């Protein structure tokens, strides 16, 4: 494994930040301090972190309704994210987008997306840009198992395969689309199989294991950058919380969830792995935990104090004309 101590600590910091950020959101929404439809990524942190560890600003990411983790891993400022979730003018979208539309195009983040499957062609287009403009960048689309039943998935992967675009399609197979178990609606055992329709490479990673994701994503991204075309990377994972904050979770068995949460938590797994191999010290991790908490607390304070967008903002940003 080729990660330096700094890189490992950075990865842990991202894992922890995603976890803590969303625990904070859960708290805030449950307390009635934050509105909107929120979909938590808790449990799936290793996927975003493992993939995005390979990306820089010239690379593009398109995300989903469950997008906080991808945004954090892609380097979006968490203060601006928090402010966005509070609907403030200092938010990533100046308070006009909310959870499902957090974006930072400067940072290569093409946005969370409220339409299941819609990020897939966006990433495909970003890959086309990178290829034609010769930037050396790659594009990554994150999406769920459910999204692989959308026509946009099929049409995009086919185009990318035909054109050998520098793109990696990362499917986060968490076993459910909303309340419906994946095996009700996807008749193949592994979603990776679906790459076969496009003669595309595919790979399966343990989405609860940062290192497995890191390695397999690294290889796919390397191939994409080298002009060897796209990959479909399936990461087997699980969402620890409900589909959205407030979901009573009536549709899944408690033992099933308990098992994942107790035995396959990606943060605990990472910690065990790096401590066992003595790559970092427990203290390093605790310091990060602490820093993350402080940073988040400050982000909440800042966000709450920030001004909302003015009412004139209702009509701005509809068109570029006059503003460019």
């Amino acid at each position, binding site marked *: 494994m080729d990660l330096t101590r700094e890189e490992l600590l950075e990865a842990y910091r991202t894992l922890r930040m995603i976890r803590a950020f969303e625990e904070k959101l859960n708290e805030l929404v449950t307390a009635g301090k934050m*509105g*909107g*439809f929120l979909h938590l990524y808790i449990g799936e942190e290793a996927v975003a972190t493992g993939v995005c560890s390979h990306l820089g600003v010239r690379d593009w990411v398109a995300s989903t309704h469950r997008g906080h983790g991808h945004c954090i891993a892609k380097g979006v400022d968490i203060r601006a994210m928090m402010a*966005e979730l509070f*609907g*403030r003018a200092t938010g990533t*979208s100046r*308070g*006009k*987008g*909310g*959870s*499902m*539309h957090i974006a930072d195009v400067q940072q290569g983040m093409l946005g969370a*997306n*409220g*339409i*299941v*499957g819609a990020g897939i062609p966006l990433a495909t287009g970003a890959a086309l840009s990178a290829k034609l403009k010769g930037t050396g960048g790659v594009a990554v689309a994150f999406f769920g198992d*459910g*999204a692989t*039943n*959308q*026509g*946009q998935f099929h049409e995009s992967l086919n185009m990318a395969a035909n054109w050998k675009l520098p793109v990696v399609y990362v499917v986060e197979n968490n076993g*459910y*689309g*909303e*309340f*419906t*178990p994946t095996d*009700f*609606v*996807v008749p193949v055992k592994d979603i990776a199989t679906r790459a076969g329709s496009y003669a595309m490479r595919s790979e399966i990673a343990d989405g609860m294991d940062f290192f497995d994701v890191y390695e397999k994503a690294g290889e796919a991204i390397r191939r994409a950058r080298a002009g060897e075309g796209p990959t479909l990377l399936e990461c087997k994972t699980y969402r620890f919380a409900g589909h959205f904050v407030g979901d009573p979770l*009536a*549709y*899944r*068995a*408690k033992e099933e969830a308990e098992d994942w949460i107790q035995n396959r938590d990606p943060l605990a797994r990472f910690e065990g792995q790096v401590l066992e191999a003595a790559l970092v010290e427990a203290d390093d991790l605790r310091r990060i935990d602490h820093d993350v908490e402080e940073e988040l607390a400050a982000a909440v304070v800042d966000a709450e104090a920030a001004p*909302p*967008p003015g*009412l004139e*903002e*209702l*009509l701005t940003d*509809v068109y570029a004309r006059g503003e460019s």
Partner: protein
Amino acid sequence: MSRVLSVSQAINEALTIAMETDPDVILLGEDVAGGGTRSGDDVEEAGGVLGTTKGLVTKFGPDRVLDTPISEMGLIGTAVGAAATGLRPVAELMFIDFLGTCLDPLLNQAAKLRYMFGGKVRVPLTVRTVTGAGMQAAAQHSQSLYWMTAGIPGLKTVIPSNAADAKGLLLAAIRDDDPVIFCEPKRILFQAGEVPEGDYEVPIGEAAVVREGSDVSLIGMGATVATALEAAELLAAEGKSAEVLDLRSLAPLDEDAILATLEKTGTVVVVDESTPRCGIASDVAALCVDRGFDFLNAPVKRVTAPHAPVPYNKALEDAYIPSVARVIEAVRECGI
């Protein structure tokens, strides 16, 4: 006999009655059963993302209440095919915003098959879909795109403003031999109202005068009917008499009812939660200045959302949705 039910419960009741009275009625959509059909002691079905179809899979079984993949194009297209071949499907499009992922089966199939086949097929399809803003669900989960379906020849589009109409309109929609888009406005879905028991239909194509008046006509639909009624109340306090018309059916439009209220008051304000271009409000105004020209005493004002996506921030979202204050202001601009 009637009881107090929410709009959502009234819809559930209409679905139950429709399925009990006609074995060809089936439901399909994402999570309409909601997973729980799998098994397990401590799992139960969700009954739709907002719980509206709760209990139906238990009652009618998974053959008639089908959880589909997240495949709007496929599921609506499949429903069209089923409707053309003897079933009477009720498909759920979770939010009308997702029309973008299933327009073709509605636009080019459901709406046109009968015409293209010279009248030799029926497409008794109902599409239930949630519309509108008000829950900070932002730009892709808050639209009022019923103008898109209302504008398509061959489709019908209805939108109830209360629980009793929701039940009767849905029963009428399901039993109609044409494809009907049934809109469920988010803001009123959990509002309660008196709902008659038993089996009844509210005819498609008939608006309802929900408050009589003589000085100005306020025309609303779905959640804006309540806005219009509130405005009428305020106007009454100043001695001005507003009539409120609930369109209920957006296509076909009840032109007679619109012209009748215009004739009575000479002044029309349309209140529509949708964006302003190519919408229902424009159609009502255009009707008034065409067939109703001789009745017009004042400009026809349209109180709509702005020509912009729906914002997330709560204060902006509130400003986005037509308010009572904006209705009153429009009435003033008509010189009343």
